[in-house]
C-alpha cells in the first residue's frame, strides 16, 4: 500500500469518527463545562454573591447581631441618612483619601529604582528579591516591628533623627497628626516591591530600537526618558494607579494591628470603621450600609478605569 493510501484511509476513518462525535458534541461539551466550572461557581455563589445580596438587604434594617433574626426591622434609608451625618465615617473617608497619597509615592520611587536596576546594575535578581521581601511578609509581623521602630521615646528612628540634631522628632503613631503619615510610610515600604516588578517587566518590553533611533537623532538621556520611557509606560502607570487606589481602600489588616484606627480616629479608614461597627459595636445593619457605600465607591473607580483606559492610554 502506498503512503498516500494510508493517509486517505486515515482521513476517512477520522471523518467517520468526527461525524459520530459531532452528533452529541454540544451536549457533551455542555456537561463537561458544567463539571469543570461547578466548584468555582458554587463556591463563589455561596461565599460572595449570596452575601452581597444579603448585605444589601441588611443595610435597610436596624438589625444587630445579638438580636435574633426575628427582631429585624425594616427601616428604609435610615442607616444611610445617619451615615452621611456620622462624623467618624466622614473622617474615615477623608483618611482613606489621604491614604491614596501612598500610591503615587510608591509608583515614583518604584519607577526610579526600576530604571536603575533594569540596565545599570549587576545581580539584578538579587535586587528584585530584596525589594519584594516586605510584600511577602506578614502584615502582622511588619506592623509589630514598625510599632517599635516608630516608638516615640526610644525607637531607633527617633534616636536617629535626634542624632541628626532634630530636637523634637514627631511622635509618629502616638500623635494623631503623624499617625496617618506613619501608616503611609509603612504602606509605601510594603508595596514598592510589587510596583517595581511590574515596572521592570514593562521596561523590558520597550523596544531597544526606539532608544537607538533617538540616540542617532542626538537625544539626551533625559529626552529619552521623557519622550520614550514615560509614554511607553502609560498603561503600566494606569494599571498600578488603579490597583493601588483600590488596594488603599482595602487597607484593613495594617490598621487593625498597627493603630486600631487611633489615636482618636486619626487612622480609621472605611473598612476599619465597618469592622468596628459590625464586630465591636455589633451594629450589623449600619455596617452593611457602610459596605454598600464602599462598594459603590469602588465600582465608580473601576468604571473610571474602564473608560479611562481608552482615553488616557494611547500611543
Amino acid at each position, binding site marked *: 500500500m502506498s503512503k498516500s493510501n494510508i493517509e486517505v484511509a486515515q482521513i476517512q476513518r*477520522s471523518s467517520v469518527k*468526527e461525524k459520530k462525535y459531532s452528533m452529541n458534541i454540544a451536549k*457533551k*461539551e455542555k456537561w*463537561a*463545562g*458544567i463539571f*469543570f*466550572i461547578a*466548584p*468555582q461557581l458554587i463556591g*463563589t455563589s455561596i*461565599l*460572595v454573591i*449570596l*452575601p*452581597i445580596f*444579603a*448585605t444589601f438587604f441588611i443595610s435597610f434594617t436596624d438589625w444587630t447581631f445579638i438580636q435574633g433574626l426575628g427582631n429585624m426591622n425594616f427601616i428604609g434609608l435610615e442607616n444611610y441618612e445617619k451615615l452621611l451625618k456620622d462624623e467618624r465615617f466622614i473622617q474615615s473617608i477623608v483618611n482613606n483619601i489621604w491614604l491614596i497619597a501612598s500610591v503615587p509615592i510608591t509608583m515614583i520611587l518604584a519607577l526610579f*529604582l526600576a530604571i*536603575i536596576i533594569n540596565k*545599570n*546594575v549587576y545581580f539584578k535578581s538579587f*535586587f528584585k528579591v*530584596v525589594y*519584594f*521581601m516586605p510584600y*511577602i*511578609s*506578614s*502584615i*502582622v*509581623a*511588619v506592623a*509589630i*516591628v514598625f510599632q517599635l*521602630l516608630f516608638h516615640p521615646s*526610644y*525607637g*531607633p528612628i527617633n*534616636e536617629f533623627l535626634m542624632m541628626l540634631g532634630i530636637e523634637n522628632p514627631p511622635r509618629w503613631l502616638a500623635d494623631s497628626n503623624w499617625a496617618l503619615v506613619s501608616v503611609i510610610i509603612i504602606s509605601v*515600604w510594603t508595596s514598592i516591591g*510589587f510596583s517595581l516588578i*511590574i515596572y*521592570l517587566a514593562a521596561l523590558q518590553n520597550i523596544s531597544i530600537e526606539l532608544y537607538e533611533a533617538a540616540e542617532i537623532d542626538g537625544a539626551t538621556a533625559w529626552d529619552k526618558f521623557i519622550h520614550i520611557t514615560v509614554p511607553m509606560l502609560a498603561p503600566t502607570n494606569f*494599571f498600578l494607579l488603579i490597583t493601588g487606589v483600590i*488596594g488603599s481602600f*482595602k487597607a*484593613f489588616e495594617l490598621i487593625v*494591628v498597627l493603630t486600631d484606627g487611633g489615636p482618636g480616629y486619626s487612622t480609621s479608614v472605611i473598612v476599619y470603621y*465597618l*469592622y468596628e461597627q*459590625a*464586630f465591636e459595636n455589633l451594629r*450589623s445593619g449600619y455596617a452593611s450600609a457602610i*459596605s454598600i457605600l*464602599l*462598594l459603590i465607591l*469602588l*465600582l465608580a473607580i473601576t468604571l473610571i478605569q474602564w473608560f479611562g483606559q481608552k482615553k488616557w492610554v494611547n500611543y
Partner: protein
Amino acid sequence: MKLNIRKLLTTILMLAVGVAFILPFIWMISASLKPESEVFAYPIQWIPEELKWSNYKTAWSDGFPLYYWNSIKVTVITTLISATVSTMSAYGFSKIHFKSRDLIFILVLATFMIPAQAILVPQFLLFKYLNLFDTHVGLILLNSFSVLGTFMLRQFFMGIHDDYIASAKIDGAGHLRIFSQIAVPLVLPAISTYFILRFIWTWNDYQGPLIFIRSDHLYTIQVGIDKFSNESGELYSLIMAGAVSAILPLLIIFIIGQRYVLEGIALGGVKG
C-alpha cells in the same frame, strides 16, 4: 565579559540603598537575639555581643508550636483546594465551549472587585448557621475559591492552541483526559506560580482567622503572634522572636521559588 566600572559603582551604591531598605528586617532579627535591656540601646548594636537564642525558646514555649501547626494545616489544604478549583474552572472557561460561558466568566470575575470586608457580616451569619464558625474547615473554605487564580490561569490556558484539543478529541479523548494529560502539564509553571502566591497569601491572612476563629487552640500563626505581642507587653525581644518566626518560613519559600513568584507577578500583574 568586561567589567564596567560605572555599572560596578552603581551596583555598590544600590546595594547600600537595598540594605537600608531591609533594615527593619535586620533590626528585627537583631533585636530578637538580644537581652531585653539592650533592645533599644543606641547606637544600635547590629550584631549582639552574645546571641540570646533562649528568646526563641521562651517564645516557642507558649502556644507557638500549635499555631504553627494550625497555619501549616490550613495553608496547605487551602492552597491545594484553591489551585485545583482554579485550574479546573480556568480550563472550563477557556477550552470548553458552552452556552453563556463568557457571560458566566465575567460575572464570576466581577466578584473580584468586592472587598472582603464588605461581605463579612453575612458571611459571619452564614458560617454561624452552617456551624462553620470557629472551625478550620470554615477558614479553609473562605479562601479556597479565589477568582484571581482562575483569571490568571485562564490566560495561560488560552495560550494553548485549540488544535491540540481538537486532535485529542478526534482520537477519542474526553475533556477529563485532555485536561489531565495535555492541558495541565502545559501550564504547570503557571500553576506552580499561583500555588506559591496562594500559599503566601493564605499564610499571611490575618483577617480571616481574626473574625472567623475564636478558640485559642485553633489560632493560626498570624493571630497567635498578635495575641502574643499583646500579652507580652514590654518584652520586646520575645515579641521580635515571635515576629521572626512568623516571617522566616515564607521568606525561605520565597527565596527558593523567587523566579516563579516574580515572573508570575510580572506576567499577570496579579495583586492579592
